[in-house]
Every structure is written in structure tokens, then in C-alpha cells.
């Protein structure tokens, strides 16, 4: 989706403001929101790509005017509402009204450390050979999918060079096709591709700049 979240190259947001001695959280609710979002990932009712998709498909004005963890809270509520895990009346009241749905796992004090230590690797075995090799020129497709994608707009249609291969990884564009488990797991080669600054930003832009993106094979085509 050509969403407001796809910020690379947008202008008008001003200087980067760094807070000196920044606290990890700016309010207690931020820490609770972070931890609940992490913990609810264990429910198995969505995956990381559906979670990102929920955040970036918030209305653009809401996305831009919400603080970071506010976006997380809104997306978490949305994910649970969509799956009938909670109702709006329950969210408003902070009280259970309807019975819970069955979830695959609830993190406890006994299991949480191991879960954080393990993470959720996305690399998977892949049988088909890679189409591209290191040093090869490739073009990022000029595509504008309606659904979730991780190919940023600013590289689309441009030619870059393969820097490295990372093996097979779960392809987000398909991982978001089904809202509920079992999710569609398509494994595609993942590459890092480097683009020259002037290729992306035109004549007169800084020639000493290069930008890489990590791109799954379906995002790329060979350049003759």
C-alpha cells in the first residue's frame, strides 16, 4: 500500500530533534503498551507482517498525529477487534463482557524470557535457486500493490546492484493475505540491493550517497 508510513524521501518534517538523556519511556502507559504488544504477539492470532500492516493502514491523519506507542495501541486494538477477541464496548469499559477466544499461547513469568531470547526468525529453507547473484544489476519493480508490501516507493523503477543474499525468508506480501492462522507462508530469496544516490534522487543530488534496501526476489527483475 502506498501509505503514509512509506516515508523515505518525503519532505517537510523538519530537523531531527534529539532529546538529551532521553528516558526509555516518556510515560508509564508507554511501557505497558510496548509490553502488551509484545506479549499479545504470542497469541498467534496475527503475525509481525499483519501487525505492521495494521499500523500503516491507520487513517493517514491519525498515523501522522499519533505518538509512536499510540500507534501501537491503536493497531493492537484494531487487530483484536478484527478477530473478535475484544469488542469496542469492552475496550471502552475496560471490562470483560463476552468470553475470550482461544489463543495459542499466553506468556507467563516462566516462559517470557525464553520467548524474548528466541524471537521469531523469518529465515526458512528454500529449494529453488536464487535468480540473482552478488554484483548483478537488478531493477526494483514499479508496482503499487493494494496490500502490505516492504518495497519502499523511493526505489521502485530504479536499477541497483545486489550486495548480498540472506537466504530464504517469509515473504510479507503473502504473509498478510490471510488474517487468521494458518497464515500463507511463501519463502523467497532475500537480497540487499544498493542504489546510487543520483539514481534515486536525480542529477545534482549528492554523488557520495548510496542507499540499500532489503528486497525479496519478487520485488526485483533482471536488467538486460
Amino acid at each position, binding site marked *: 500500500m502506498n501509505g503514509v508510513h512509506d516515508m*523515505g524521501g518525503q519532505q517537510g*518534517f523538519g530537523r531531527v530533534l534529539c532529546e538529551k538523556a532521553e*528516558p526509555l519511556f516518556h510515560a508509564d502507559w508507554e511501557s505497558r503498551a510496548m509490553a502488551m504488544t509484545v506479549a499479545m504477539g504470542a497469541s498467534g492470532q496475527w503475525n509481525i507482517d499483519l501487525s505492521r500492516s495494521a499500523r500503516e493502514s491507520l487513517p493517514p491523519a491519525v498515523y501522522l498525529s499519533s505518538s*509512536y506507542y499510540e500507534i501501537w495501541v491503536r493497531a493492537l486494538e484494531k487487530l483484536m477487534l478484527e478477530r473478535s477477541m475484544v469488542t469496542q464496548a469492552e*475496550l471502552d469499559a475496560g471490562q470483560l463482557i463476552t468470553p475470550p477466544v482461544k489463543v495459542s499461547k*499466553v506468556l507467563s513469568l516462566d516462559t517470557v524470557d525464553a520467548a*524474548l531470547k528466541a524471537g521469531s526468525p523469518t529465515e526458512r529453507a528454500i529449494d529453488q535457486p536464487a535468480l540473482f547473484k552478488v554484483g548483478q544489476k537488478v531493477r526494483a519493480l514499479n508496482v503499487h500493490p493494494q496490500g502490505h508490501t516492504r518495497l519502499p516507493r523511493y526505489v521502485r523503477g530504479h536499477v541497483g546492484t545486489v550486495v548480498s543474499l540472506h537466504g530464504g525468508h517469509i515473504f510479507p506480501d503473502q504473509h498478510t493475505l490471510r488474517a487468521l492462522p494458518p497464515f500463507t507462508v511463501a519463502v523467497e530469496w532475500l537480497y540487499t540491493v544498493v542504489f546510487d544516490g543520483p539514481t534515486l534522487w536525480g542529477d545534482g543530488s549528492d554523488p557520495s550517497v548510496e542507499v540499500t534496501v532489503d528486497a525479496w526476489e519478487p520485488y526485483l527483475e533482471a536488467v538486460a
Partner: protein
Amino acid sequence: MASHSHDHDHEHSTLSEMDVRVRALESLLTQKGYIDPAAIDRIIETYETEIGPHNGAQVVAKAWAEPEFKAWLLKDATAAIASLGFTGRQGEHMVAVENTPDQHNMVVCTLCSCYPWPILGLPPVWYKSAAYRSRTVLEPRKVLADFGVSLPESTRIRVWDSTAEVRYLVLPKRPPDTDHLSPTALAALVTRDAMIGTALL
């Protein structure tokens, strides 16, 4: 570990509304049996006290001190970093990129906020800001100027946009005259921003 509320005038109205909303959410999810509040406390404690840039600093100091470890880090960062005990969520697939006189590296996530949690902890607000996400790929030298960093024109700047589940660690240049320092003293020189690429050491 005490939790603190921090006053920020521009967020006052949002804060109180969000405080109520998040308390209601936690209460509801607990009643539903979807979360265990003890696990929520433990997740917060982990990122407040155990996981942060001091982890990454150990990785960098070891790479400076031990050429074999550095070679391993640059070849297979996931395994090299895991050997120090740093693994897991948002660091499942690691790549380390080395700053040299010819090339400076910077990390961004233009699409969201991807960041190597096991070695740097949770990202600062600026890393997640629209200004950083939008400008870093377009005008990295001007972004560096916002951090007070200026690089020679002859230094190439490579910006790594974290668009997949690969997470990047910048291996900063070792400061001069540090040969005599212990690994602990070396690690103390390494800053979070240097490992993102927005500071020099």
C-alpha cells in the same frame, strides 16, 4: 526499577487520555486471560535493565580488540553476536557494517522502526520520527549535521534501510590512542548513536 512519569507539555492532553485507554486495555486483556501482568512487568524490566546499548558496546569493543572476532562479526554477525549471549526478538538476523575512512554507514527504517533490540534496546524517539525516516535516505549529510557530525566529501555514505527482518549494527572506527584500554574501558567509549551511524567516536 522505578518507573517514572516525565512531563512533556506538548503531550499532556494525549498522556492522560492514553493513560486511561491503556489501563482499560490491560485490565480487559488480563480479565480475558490473554496476558499475564507478571509477564508484562518482566518484559518492561528486561528492556529497562538488561537489554540496551551496553550490549552492542561489548560487541564493538570485542571486535576492536580481537581481529578474529571482528572477521567473524563481519561475516556472520548473527552467530558472532549470539556468542556473547545477545539473541532474540528484533535481532534474529544480524548484519554488521564497518565504518572506514572511505565509507560511513548509517541505519534507518523508512517504513516503520526496525532496530536491533538485543544489542541496542528500544529505539529512541528520533529514530522513529518522521524527520529521520524521511530524510536519511534523501540527504544523509544534512541529517548528520543535525547530530553535529560532518564528514569529508571524499567519504562515501551508505544508508542501510531496514526493510526486512535483517537488523544492522554499525561498527564504528576505533578512536586513536586506545591500544592500552581494557575491553571494559573500550566498551565505555562506544555510544548508541555511533552504532546507528549518527555519531563518530
